[in-house]
């Protein structure tokens, strides 16, 4: 099995001269849930559409499961499950008929998966109700079930929790985690609901105005978001020893730029300042830092706009 499932290299997509994606280079590894974070129009859906073959890049390359080139990609797409923008559903058919239609299309003989998938997404009791009479949340669930037909290795879900009630959100979250853990499925999921993504994804890709601003793991994100006192001074080594000897803490981290993140004494900034001053440290910065995921996202994309 390839270590990476999706790799894009300088992927660019322009619409009439306007870049929807600009030099996007990402690598998605197997068995992880990637949260794609970005504002409306950031390029999330464009990226997903390119991967799914619904659109073609202006320049750059896409690789799936270790293969590149149009024909190879087409073949590898048989290992994908997608729900991009809206679920692919026939409105005049029932939930089971929709699953059956897609099952036949994908050439899967096993009829049992129809009921299994409906149970999986909690739609096994919809009977003869036509999809056109479904609520938005029910359609989303069915869309996810459709995307799961054929046991895809790579699942692409664009805003899958839109319209779901809180219980539905939890169920879908648990379902995605289960798929990732039990089947080693790779999932690329976009959402405006950042707290929800924070609970679901293992890795994050922040996209803004078509550019990838940051790719980071959950632990890196937690590290970035963790509240701390940020201390800057000229004598980092001395500062560290004072923290350990005078303040009795080793819960700090020296950053590459020689600043120090102190995770203790968060509510005792004055005490820290006093101890450092008494020990001859000239502090150039002592500030309380740390973000929520929303704050962190805003700090990355550089604005306070709606996510």
């Amino acid at each position, binding site marked *: 099995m390839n270590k990476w499932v999706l790799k894009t290299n300088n992927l660019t997509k322009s619409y009439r001269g306007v870049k929807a994606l600009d030099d996007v280079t990402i690598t998605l590894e197997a068995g992880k849930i990637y949260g794609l974070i970005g504002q409306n129009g950031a390029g999330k859906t464009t990226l997903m*559409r390119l991967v*799914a*073959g*619904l*659109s*073609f890049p202006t320049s750059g390359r896409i690789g799936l499961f270790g293969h590149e080139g149009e024909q190879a990609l*087409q*073949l*590898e*797409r*048989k290992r*994908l*499950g*997608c729900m*991009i*923008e*809206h*679920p*692919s*559903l*026939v*409105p*005049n*058919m029932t939930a089971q*008929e929709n699953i*059956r*239609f*897609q099952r*036949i*299309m*994908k*050439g899967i003989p096993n009829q049992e998966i129809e009921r299994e998938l409906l149970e999986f997404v909690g739609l096994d009791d919809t009977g003869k109700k036509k999809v056109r009479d479904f609520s938005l949340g029910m359609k989303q669930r069915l869309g996810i079930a*459709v995307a799961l037909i*054929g046991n895809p290795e790579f699942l*692409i879900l664009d805003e899958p929790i839109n319209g779901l009630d809180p219980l539905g959100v939890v169920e879908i979250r648990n379902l995605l985690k289960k798929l990732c853990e039990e089947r080693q499925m790779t999932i690329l999921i976009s959402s405006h609901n950042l707290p929800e993504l924070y609970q679901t994804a293992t890795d994050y890709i922040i996209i803004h105005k078509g550019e990838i601003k940051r790719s980071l793991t959950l632990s890196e994100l937690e590290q970035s978001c963790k509240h701390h006192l940020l201390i800057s001074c000229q004598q980092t080594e001395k500062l560290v020893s004072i923290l350990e000897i005078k303040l009795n803490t080793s819960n700090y981290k020296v950053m590459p730029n020689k600043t120090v993140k102190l995770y203790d004494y968060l509510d005792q900034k004055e005490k820290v300042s006093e101890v450092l001053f008494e020990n001859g440290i000239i502090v150039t910065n002592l500030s309380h830092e740390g973000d929520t995921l929303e704050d962190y996202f805003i700090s990355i994309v550089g604005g306070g706009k709606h996510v």
Partner: protein
Amino acid sequence: MYNLVVADFYKLRKSMVIKILFGITSLSSIAMALMAYLIPQGKISSSLTGIGFMFSDINMVSILGAVIAGVFICGDFENKTIHDAISTGFNRGTVIISKVIVYFCSIGLILLPYAIVTIIALSTGFEFSMGSVAIGFLNMLTADTMAVFSTSTIGQLLITMLVLTIVYMAQLSICVPLAFILKKQVYVVAIYYGLSILSGQLMLLADSSSIFNQIFTRTPFGGNHAFLTLDTVASDILKALGVSFTFIILIIIVTYTLFRKAEIK
């Protein structure tokens, strides 16, 4: 491709639209035959041939054939089943051909009542006439009226009807690129109906211009391709068949060329 075709047939089977369209053509075919029977008997005025033409196969298929293309191709863009087919690895050419197969089968289905009614009507030995407005199955009904039936005649009738159906399929194949590119049912129906009316006018132009006639005859809209009867010689039937298949292949190539790199919204 087999899976796509079978899946589309499954969808077709579940569709109320195709059942309604089949019902409409069933009733229309009976109405057409009744009027063609009553007009020569003088029970209804011959001035009503215009209304009789409205029930005829050429008129019905021009509207309903385009409706089918709208429902089954444009509809698939709306409900994103084409998106799903492509994102799960189906070649765009395969998607087009599978849609064409199912589309043509649907056309065959809605034309079936006309074929059955024509056979039944001709087998009665009664006189049928709709005057000069007769084309397609209605033309067969009018031209072959009171024909003596034998086993070979029935065979010839079935072959002629099959070829006529293929001519209709070729004419309606224009709806395929329209549906794949415009993706809006209303445009497909309106444009195709406009084209079918235009083709009637072009037929008049072909009568006055031999050069245009030469070109027009090479399309399923021209020549006598839609005027096949039991008296049509084998060479003309083969010509109609050849022109239709060539036209269908060309239309598929055009569709593929247009759709191959198209953005699927």
